[in-house]
């Protein structure tokens, strides 16, 4: 629940900041959506009239109390309050100077935001946050690059090992042919020798087999 509240607050700070900041200078009319965002906030949207209890009927949630209050109901007010506090913090951080800053409709140019004074407070985190937590870089280093290298290795394996074996089978007859080619020299002596040798082998075979 703490996490939920924290998240709620962070979101509202961020949303509030978005509202109070404009990039095009004060007086811009980009604020129309904020009203719409506040309206269906958790306080309103999940109100008991919306059949919320029907959805969760039968779960232990419903029965559980929180300081004698219905936990769900309590949560609406808590989240609404937290949301408002978040908006307030956003207004203080990002709104114009003075008490007018607390009211909607006042905006300030992004470069002049008071939140910038908080940068030293967060140390290296600002830089990390500004670089989107280095998610892309980490992803690139951990997944994309290794996969890319692996792919190249696979490609080499494919060319030289998987296909190499296939080509080897193709090369064997060629080698045998190459090795035997000198015997087909056209010299009568060679053929005569071969014939005599072959006859000798045959004779030996016949002799051995007919014994």
């Amino acid at each position, binding site marked *: 629940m703490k996490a939920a509240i924290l998240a709620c607050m962070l979101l509202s700070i961020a949303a509030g900041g978005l509202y109070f900041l404009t990039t095009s200078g004060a007086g811009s009319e980009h604020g129309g959506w904020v009203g719409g965002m506040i309206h269906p906030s958790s306080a309103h949207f999940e109100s008991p009239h919306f059949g919320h209890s029907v959805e969760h009927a039968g779960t232990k949630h419903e029965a559980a109390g929180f300081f004698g209050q219905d936990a769900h109901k309590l949560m609406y007010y808590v989240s609404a309050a937290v949301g408002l506090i978040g908006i307030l913090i956003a207004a203080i951080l990002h709104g114009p100077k003075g008490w007018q800053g607390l009211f909607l409709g006042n905006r300030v140019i992004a470069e002049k935001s008071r939140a910038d004074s908080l940068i030293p407070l967060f140390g290296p985190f600002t830089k990390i946050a500004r670089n989107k937590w280095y998610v892309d870089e980490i992803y690139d280093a951990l997944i994309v690059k290794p996969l890319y290298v692996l*792919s190249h290795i696979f490609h080499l394996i494919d060319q030289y090992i998987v296909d190499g074996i296939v080509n080897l089978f193709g090369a064997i007859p060629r080698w045998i042919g190459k090795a035997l080619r000198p015997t087909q020299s056209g010299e009568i002596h060679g053929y005569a020798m071969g014939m005599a040798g072959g006859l000798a082998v045959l004779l030996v075979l016949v002799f051995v087999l007919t014994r």
Partner: protein
Amino acid sequence: MELFALILLPLLFALGVAFLPAAQSRMVALVGMLVTFALTIIIASRFDTGSAAKYQFAKSVEWLPDLGLNLSVGIDSISLLLVLLTGLLGPICILASWTSITERVKTFHVWMLVLQAAMLGVFCARDLILFYVCFEFTLVPMYILISLYGSTNRKRAAVKFFLYTFTGSVIALAGLVYIANHHAGLPGRNWTFDINTLATTARGMSTSEQGWILLALMAGFAVKVPLFPLHTWLPLAHTEAPTAGSVVLAGVLLKLGTYAIYRFVLPFAPQAVIEYAPLLAVLCIIGIIYGGLVCWVQTDIKKLVAYSSVAHLGFCMLGMFALNHTGIAGSITYMINHGLSTGALFLLIGMIYERYHTRNMKELGGLGAKMPIWSTFMVFFAMASVGLPGLNGFVSEFMCMLGTFQSSSAWGSSNLWGSLSDVRPVGVTHGNLGPWFAIVAGTGVIIAAMYLLYMVGMIVWGKLREPAGHGAHGAHGAAGNHGHHQGEQHVAVLTTDLNTREIITLAPLAALCFLLGIYPTPILNIIEAPVQQTTTMIEMERKSIALTRPMPRQGSREGSSEGSHGMRAGEHDGNHAGQEHPSPVTTPEEAHK
């Protein structure tokens, strides 16, 4: 008679092309392909979908009765789908080569028609020898198409393609003849090559004997598919082949392998397939991931798409080796879908090659602005190939993976995830693959998105990049240079973007990708009966394995051997959930949900 006519028609037109003047070859070939396609549609319309598992239009003519050779044909719904795909791709290939083939036009079209006849023959054959003759005969036209009309390295590619696939299929023939010989040796039997008769005989063999048959048949058919270590002929042949050749290769020739595995390996050696399914599945998964990663580092677009076939066919075969209804049905739809989307990708690359004479991604880029129609098709078919939900690739890929996921006898036991879980989702089946196979294979989907989107990003988006020397005169020089060969009068000058002819070649494929993506039910319905027959047969074989080889009983689980069908002895220690769910075999209704 219709099927004989279907096989003979392209041959007849091939004769026509051969004897008519070269100037008319294109037209005659196109008419021939269109008439053949029309006949396939007539056959499809007269096909009785009520008995889709039966071989319809069956016809048998005695050939060499002493040897038991018959010319028998017949198609069930699975053959029908592939016949339709072949019929559709025929005219598309002729149209796609309209301007790119400018030399030896006659030869090209004769062999295209002969190839068409041979492919149709494979899908129609009900006799082993007829099947094998057609299966092998596809090599001859393809060899000629690659070696005469291919690009720079074509001779080497053609020889490698021929020798590699031929060597494999000779071993497959040995396996098939062994079965026939075994059959003839049985008391009271004669030589026959009837597929169903031999399947019955082969199923009577022992598991180890079936293992050898599996090995022999896979030696031939896995090369054709291609499964992982036997795939190296494919990138070379695809890359070097002319566009029409690549389309036929990807669209139909690879399916000869998957079809043959479905038609022969599963019914001839079911026990061995059950036994070795995990091993075969591992090869498929290696193909998926390894093929996908190799795709990623290609700079040649055509080679990239060629390697993508290795990865995609890995999915197709994985689904088949799941040996359940979802997996096999997914595998069969994958055959069709891959033929459509990858065929179209090769067409698109051919169109670019014809204009720029390069396939190098580094030289091409930013074509989106210059060729919007081409780019639209490119993105569309790349998405179909990636498996974007709503397009055809998704349906089959998902079914293949779901089938794999469900195919484990360990569901509900501790063998599945390591800890005991009673989770036993609807539709799980016996088998020895399971979730881990599906999860690892699933990364292949991400890889597919990676390399295909990378390719699309390189050539469609970004700044316009064109090869040097390809300036203001645009893409027109290409066809014009070759226009004077053989007195070709009607070679049209190519437009910058696609012309009407090219759009006509792509539009039907795009329409089908879209239709089969959102409403695949007709196909799933029509293949249900034969797939059901196959899975029933496999379940029976699973039970007979379990009977002949009882499981070693584990002390903790009494009677656990009862529920463990078809697992390797000692591999899994039981399947207690098998008793809680007496019939976990997926019914087709479940499989479709």
